């Protein structure tokens, strides 16, 4: 069935789904029509536009069935390990154990958006002292209290130190609710002095050697903690193999990004690209399925590019987006305003880059952990963004502030000024709340102004 690439509403997807099934679409166990998720409470889906490919269908179904998957893992006797805040490192260690699976309770920050705030997580968080002055990650506290959005993990591991204050406070509240946490210390990544031993990291950062040594010790303690939970030791070869698997998936992901961000016509929507990127943090609790979906998406994207097909006009402004959005709809809005996603920095670049090929797998993971953009200065992050902008040829930058987040007010200003001074690109800062509907006119105006500026700058 040769269907042109397009974006569909949820109801349009019903018809498309019926067509695909009639044409013999094979789906994994978590497959089915997207509408069922909305009927089960994910109301925000009704406001979104989705890519019409089977690969995108699999992607969405995979994302929206993680809770079922976790419950099945538990039923199968696996331990569920809640990894918190580090965004990518500890799950690799956890998933190296056959009988453990990692997931991020942090992901609950999107639940109020998906449920259009009908689930009451923010209200519960407020009852436990975390009001709207905290970033949407406070929803995690509500999810631990009502136990309705993920199975309560068998153990929790959380990074602290060079992290945001909101998360540190929210995680502490989780612990005070009776969920013990294994805390590990993430140092602020410092620029090494000329006299000290330093290491180059994967995202282009440099750090002092002693910070790597410290992180290796921290990761070793996490490994010992997990071994105690598992009742057996982890052979380093298992971890080495896991790192190879992760690097393989990351390679597919980077191919997807490179193709999508540089194609003359956008072959895939911003929303799907955001979701794919999010999968890279912990593979949505199933690494094999993540690889399968990424392969399917990559194949679809290649076909579209070869056919010179896409989903947006060829003149769409190429926008680099900084920070994840609390409201998924913001990605659709960017496209409605005439933009397309051409570069992202969603705070976990360290989960996308290849993990260093090091004899000692824990040292390799220490390198990865210290490459976290949030662990360093705003200048480090601005330079990382600049490297990606050059790689993808982005024409403008949107810095999307996360409401209440401790880092956004200062970091956004610095990154904005740095980009303007060094790359002479137009930059806007916007704040995207969990449900942006009432802010839509102002967000739209600002995005349209940016895109108009981009198009004006193209004129000779």
């Amino acid at each position: 069935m040769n269907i042109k690439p397009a974006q569909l509403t949820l109801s349009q997807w019903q018809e498309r789904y019926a067509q695909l099934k009639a044409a013999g679409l094979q789906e994994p166990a978590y497959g089915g029509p997207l509408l069922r998720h909305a009927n089960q409470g994910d109301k925000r889906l009704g406001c979104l536009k989705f890519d019409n490919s089977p690969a995108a269908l699999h992607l969405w179904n995979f994302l929206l069935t993680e809770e079922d998957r976790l419950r099945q893992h538990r039923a199968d006797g696996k331990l569920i390990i809640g990894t918190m805040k580090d965004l990518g490192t500890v799950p690799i260690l956890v998933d190296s154990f056959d009988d453990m699976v990692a997931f991020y309770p942090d992901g609950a920050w999107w639940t109020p958006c998906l449920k259009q705030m009908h689930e009451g997580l923010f209200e519960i968080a407020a009852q436990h002292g975390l009001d709207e002055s905290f970033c949407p990650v406070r929803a995690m506290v509500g999810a631990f209290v009502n136990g309705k959005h993920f199975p309560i993990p068998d153990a929790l591991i959380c990074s602290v130190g060079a992290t945001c204050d909101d998360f540190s406070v929210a995680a502490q509240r989780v612990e005070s609710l009776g969920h013990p946490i294994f805390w590990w210390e993430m140092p602020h990544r410092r620029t090494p002095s000329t006299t000290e031993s330093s290491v180059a990291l994967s995202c282009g950062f440099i750090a002092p050697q002693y910070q790597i040594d410290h992180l290796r010790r921290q990761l070793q303690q996490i490994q010992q903690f997990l071994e105690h939970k598992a009742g057996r030791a982890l052979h380093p070869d298992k971890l080495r193999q896991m790192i190879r698997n992760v690097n393989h998936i990351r390679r597919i992901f980077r191919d997807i990004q490179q193709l999508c961000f540089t194609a003359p016509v956008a072959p895939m929507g911003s929303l799907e690209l955001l979701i794919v990127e999010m999968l890279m943090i912990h593979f949505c609790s199933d690494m094999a399925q993540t690889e399968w979906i990424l392969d399917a998406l990559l194949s679809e994207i290649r076909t579209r590019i070869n056919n010179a097909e896409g989903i947006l006009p060829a003149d769409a402004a190429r926008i680099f987006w900084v920070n994840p959005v609390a409201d998924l709809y913001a990605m659709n809005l960017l496209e409605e305003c005439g933009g397309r996603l051409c570069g992202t920095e969603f705070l976990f670049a360290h989960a996308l880059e290849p993990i260093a090929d090091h004899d000692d797998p824990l040292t390799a993971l220490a390198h990865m952990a210290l490459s976290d953009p949030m662990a360093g200065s705003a200048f480090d992050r601005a330079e990382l963004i600049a490297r990606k902008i050059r790689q993808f040829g982005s024409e403008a930058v949107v810095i999307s502030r996360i409401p209440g987040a401790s880092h956004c007010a200062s970091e956004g200003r610095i990154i904005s000024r740095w980009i303007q001074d060094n790359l002479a690109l137009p930059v806007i800062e916007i704040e995207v709340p969990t449900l942006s509907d009432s802010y839509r006119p102002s967000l739209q105006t600002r995005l349209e102004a940016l895109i108009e500026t981009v198009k004006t700058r193209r004129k000779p």
Partner: protein
Amino acid sequence: MMPVWYNCPFVPAELITACGLSPRRFDADTADFCAAQTEGICFAVETFLTGLKKQTSPYAVIFTTLCDQMRRAFDLYQANGGKNGFLLNVPVTIGPDAVALFAEELRQMEQFLGHLSDHTAQFDTINTDAPHLKSSKPQKNSRAKIALIGGPVYACQLAALEHSLENRGAIVLNAAENAVEEFRRPLNPQALKIDPYVELAAAYLQTIPSIRTRPGHLFYQWLQTQLQTTAVDGIILIRHPFCDHWRGVEYQLRQRPLPPVLAIEWNGSPQVAALSRLEAFLEMLGR
């Protein structure tokens, strides 16, 4: 001697002195608060940056990573052309690994300071006594005994608070952020000779109470221990706008078997609403 400004209890002033420089603990005045207006930025951070801008003679400054906002303040300082700044990584866990990490950070800080003063630290000059614990004056029984936490609570705020308490209440335990280094243990002269960085790191990191320390119950345990030796009728928590950590503490305090808590978000000068709440609090305490 070049002044070295800092505003965090985990900065060892002894190390600054040992490097031949003059430690200066920052204390905001009311005008600094008036300048603190940026949405989303903690007023304690912004007053610090404002206060630094007012300096007319050369100085150095130590920022710390104790909270994310202060960590970012170092970025803002640099972005605005600030010179002679150092960011000290203060761990929030307190185990042996954290002490080792902090010791290495102090070594880096000493190199930074030594570069400014042109000589290395003279560790044998370090005073190993415990910090001077300011004893509270004997209180009339009629006055409510108050423990003060939160902050940092600057002198202008403290004076305004004491003025507001008048003769109905008195602060008998000051555990505000800029006062807690008084609770640090004395330095061990022998350990200081063996490895001064490790000894300073251990003394500061493991005995100065902080709400940022994880696990968080350590702070509440410390507070409860203090309240067993210093009886108080009520606790006043002063927090700055946009400070997540102290905002997060308020609820937890109320869940614990502690004296009544009054939380005031105070941006410098006493506000009518804050004073009214203080009045009500004192009334509630029977004063």
